[in-house]
């Protein structure tokens, strides 16, 4: 025991008290820097939110979400944009979810690890980083013109689906990869096929992660403006979409349109619109958190 104490003394000895103090100062400075970085981000966000709420609070009313856009700011609402957003996001989810989760299951559970899947994987990661306006151009070329779907809800939704597909695939892959190997082995050892293992064990275990990633990707899509502008969402639409091939507009585009107007009132209207958009976003994130809790509790 005394030998152990001795050796400990030997180890501590070179660190004289001034050295030790320097290291402690270093630790405190870095801690301050990191805390500063965090508060900077939070404060900027808070200021932005505050200024928007101050700008738009007086214009926030039910009329905003029950009326069509109008030339007169006191009569204008964003019903058509809200409905357009709901249409586009629902369709995007319907298209992107099965494809994205399917691709993730294939890559994680079925695909061999070879140069081909490595190329696929790299490409998916790169696609997640492609600017959204490029997807807009792709959508314009393929869905609007080549497929002849026109400047419609479905063209917008398909473009959005392409945009968020890489994010959904990567998020789902990570959730699937987090499922312990021992679970798969246990199922395989009972004579389960790959599909039975994926369907009964891997997917349920990975579902909370997949849902969270998917809903966050959809939240990102809700705020996207550029690709839909390129695909041809209109700035002024005074009707709700009724079918896949109808023209449409979405919340960010309506807001963008209002901010471009010369009258001050429209600026306030835009701020109120942003609040609506934020509420929709927060609502979706809340759903994501709820689903995550709900499914995680199953065992």
């Amino acid at each position: 025991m005394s030998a152990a104490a001795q050796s400990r003394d030997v180890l501590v000895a070179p660190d004289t008290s001034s050295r030790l103090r320097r290291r402690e100062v270093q630790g405190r400075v870095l801690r301050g820097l990191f805390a500063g970085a965090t508060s900077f981000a939070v404060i900027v966000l808070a200021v932005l939110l505050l200024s928007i709420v101050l700008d738009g609070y007086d214009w926030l009313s039910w009329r905003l979400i029950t009326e069509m856009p109008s030339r007169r700011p006191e009569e204008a609402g964003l019903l058509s944009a809200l409905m357009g957003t709901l249409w586009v996001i629902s369709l995007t989810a319907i298209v992107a979810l099965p494809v994205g989760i399917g691709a993730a299951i294939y890559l994680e559970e079925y695909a061999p690890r070879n140069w081909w899947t490595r190329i696929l994987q790299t490409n998916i990661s790169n696609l997640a980083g492609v600017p959204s306006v490029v997807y807009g151009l792709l959508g314009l070329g393929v869905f609007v013109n080549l497929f002849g779907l026109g400047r419609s809800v479905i063209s917008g939704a398909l473009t959005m689906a392409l945009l968020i597909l890489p994010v959904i695939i990567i998020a789902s892959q990570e959730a699937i990869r987090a499922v312990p190997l021992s679970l798969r082995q246990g199922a395989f050892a009972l004579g389960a096929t790959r599909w039975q293992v994926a369907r009964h064990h891997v997917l349920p275990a990975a579902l909370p992660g997949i849902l969270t990633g998917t809903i966050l990707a959809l939240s990102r899509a809700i705020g996207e403006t550029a690709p839909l502008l390129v695909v041809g969402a209109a700035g002024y639409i005074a009707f709700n979409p009724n079918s896949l091939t109808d023209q449409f507009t979405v919340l960010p585009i309506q807001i963008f349109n209002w901010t471009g107007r010369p009258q001050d009132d429209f600026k306030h209207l835009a701020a109120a619109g942003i609040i609506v958009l934020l509420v929709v976003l927060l609502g979706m994130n809340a759903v994501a958190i709820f689903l995550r809790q709900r499914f995680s509790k199953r065992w």
Partner: protein
Amino acid sequence: MVRQTQAYRVSNPVDINVASASGAIQTPPRGANLETRQDNVISIINLNVYYGAFHAVADVSFDVPKHHVTALIGPSGCGKSTVLRSINRMNDLVPGARVEGSIKYHGHDICSPRVDPVEVRRRIGMVFQKPNPFPKSIYENVAWGARINGIRGNMDELVERSLRQAALWDEVKDKLKDSGLALSGGQQQRLCIARTLAINPDVILMDEPASALDPISTLKIEDLMRDLVRQYTIVIVTHNMQQAARVSDQTVFFSLNERRQGVLVEASPTRELFTNPRDQRTEDYITGRFG
């Protein structure tokens, strides 16, 4: 209590399983082929396993007699588990793993690419080192494997029978709806055995099934193995030589050759291997002189 049972297992030759084992096994030395034996469930012939460029197991041959416990022992990294996992094609799931040679199961070559691994695993079940119950209810843990394999009939009865066979029924009969993960480690492992029994396999492979368990749970698993071997054929990998001595009828000793490949040194009836090993390396290992 532990000691008592040990003594019972090792020293009492009247024990029905040990007795029948020593009577039935006349395994020639060095795991030579036993084509002549009628009741070998599995015959491994010149098995070679590679992980990528690494030659992990070299030219291993031995037989697994019916209704016997065969223990695979040897130092870490000598390929025991690799051999075990080849028997039910679990190595298929390891990227880069390649198996050569043949593993005859009732005369069919399991290693053939034409054989469906799902079919193999349905007949050759496996219990893993770390208990890995499904994150489902105890009932579902047992019923799931049976259900996906298309076993019909009274599922409640099958679940009860499997849990009884695994000596777990009395402990869980009032909480079948509880999560399998709520059980203790030893109970979880017996649950894993129960779910394997539920698909009515022919052979049960066990990869160090008790190494993550406390001595009492270990003892229960060992007793269970002696019970199960009346109906099933068991192959077990163990690091614990006393365990091999206690539960097995035949012991296969693996070691590493100079090229770090896993090789079979000796396959003998357990009593013979531990009391009168044929190979110097076996003797060094079982007497703790292994270097």
